[in-house]
């Protein structure tokens, strides 16, 4: 069912079932495996129990945040420092969430509130790509988020259990899986000169900002600046 402004609460349509979501979530499932396994191993080495790791992955569901937290725990950082740092790193979720909001207008607030727990970079990118052509449904988002979340919980927990038996997963090229997925999603978002321009800006700024300030906020800041410049240029072109 193509995008239709008059449609109301849509739980399932042919292209928007949970199954579609689960299917589209497969690259994420694959990408999370090496990340999750590695995290499990590191977290267990830091002294976290299987239960704590499971709880982290279940309740937080953030690779970057979890990695940083464990790293800081390992060096004995105070609670407040860990919470502030992870808050800053994950502040980009505000941006992702805001840009996803227009697509979920027709979904009831309680459903959106429930689904929002599963919005990671990857779930966001896959969902957004789907919404270019199809109306957002609760079922679809749930499918993508569920597949991803399960993969994350399982791989982090298994990583913790298996410890160092795993050896080097790099030989399967799995360490490139997530980047490959993001490349695909990025390319699908670029369909004219403006988007190409903003993409170029975003990429360059992300590197430059990191190079100059070494901040983990580089993605957030780069995105804000390039989106703003993009709108500025678009407005300027429309006026002239």
């Amino acid at each position, binding site marked *: 069912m193509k995008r239709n402004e008059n449609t109301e609460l849509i739980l399932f349509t042919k292209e928007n079932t949970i199954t579609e979501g689960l299917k589209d979530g497969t690259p994420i499932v694959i990408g999370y495996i090496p990340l999750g396994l590695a995290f499990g191993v590191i977290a267990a080495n830091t002294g976290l129990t299987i239960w704590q790791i499971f709880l982290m992955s279940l309740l937080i569901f953030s690779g970057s945040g979890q990695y940083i937290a464990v790293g800081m725990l390992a060096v004995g950082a105070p609670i407040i420092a860990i919470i502030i740092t992870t808050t800053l790193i994950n502040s980009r979720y505000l941006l992702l969430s805001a840009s996803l909001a227009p697509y979920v207008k027709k979904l009831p607030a309680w459903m959106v509130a429930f689904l929002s727990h599963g919005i990671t970079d990857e779930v966001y990118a896959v969902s957004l790509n789907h919404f270019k052509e199809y109306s957002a449904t609760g079922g679809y988002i749930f499918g993508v988020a569920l597949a991803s979340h399960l993969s994350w919980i399982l791989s982090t927990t298994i990583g913790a259990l298996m410890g160092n038996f795993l050896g080097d997963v790099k030989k399967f090229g799995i360490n490139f899986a997530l980047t490959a997925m993001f490349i695909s999603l990025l390319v699908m978002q670029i369909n004219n000169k403006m*988007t190409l321009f903003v993409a170029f800006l*975003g990429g360059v700024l*992300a590197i430059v900002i990191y190079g100059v300030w070494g901040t983990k906020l580089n993605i957030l800041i780069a995105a804000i600046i390039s989106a703003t410049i993009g709108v500025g240029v678009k407005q300027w072109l429309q006026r002239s």
Partner: protein
Amino acid sequence: MASKILIIILGMALINYLFRMLPLVVLSRIDLPEIIMDWLHFVPVAVLAAIVAQGIFIPENNIILSWKNIYLWSAIPCIAIAWKTKNLTYTLIVGMATMALIEYIK
């Protein structure tokens, strides 16, 4: 240590959830001005480009701007296939296969 970890987990979980939930729920219930909508439409491509650039050029917390960057080598065929096929699965396979090959050759 156990209670410290529990507090951190719960604190992070709460903040993360609020960051994800509030804009999604609140901003989808109000009408945003057109310029904000325009801005939000640029956000995905900007964020994705930043993430990709970081994945290729800052793979392990160090900037690698050289032709020896194996992530760059894996990215080139990956981008080509992504552009040509616009298919997630093919892109993933090409990307991973290229990286596996490079790791094998190393």
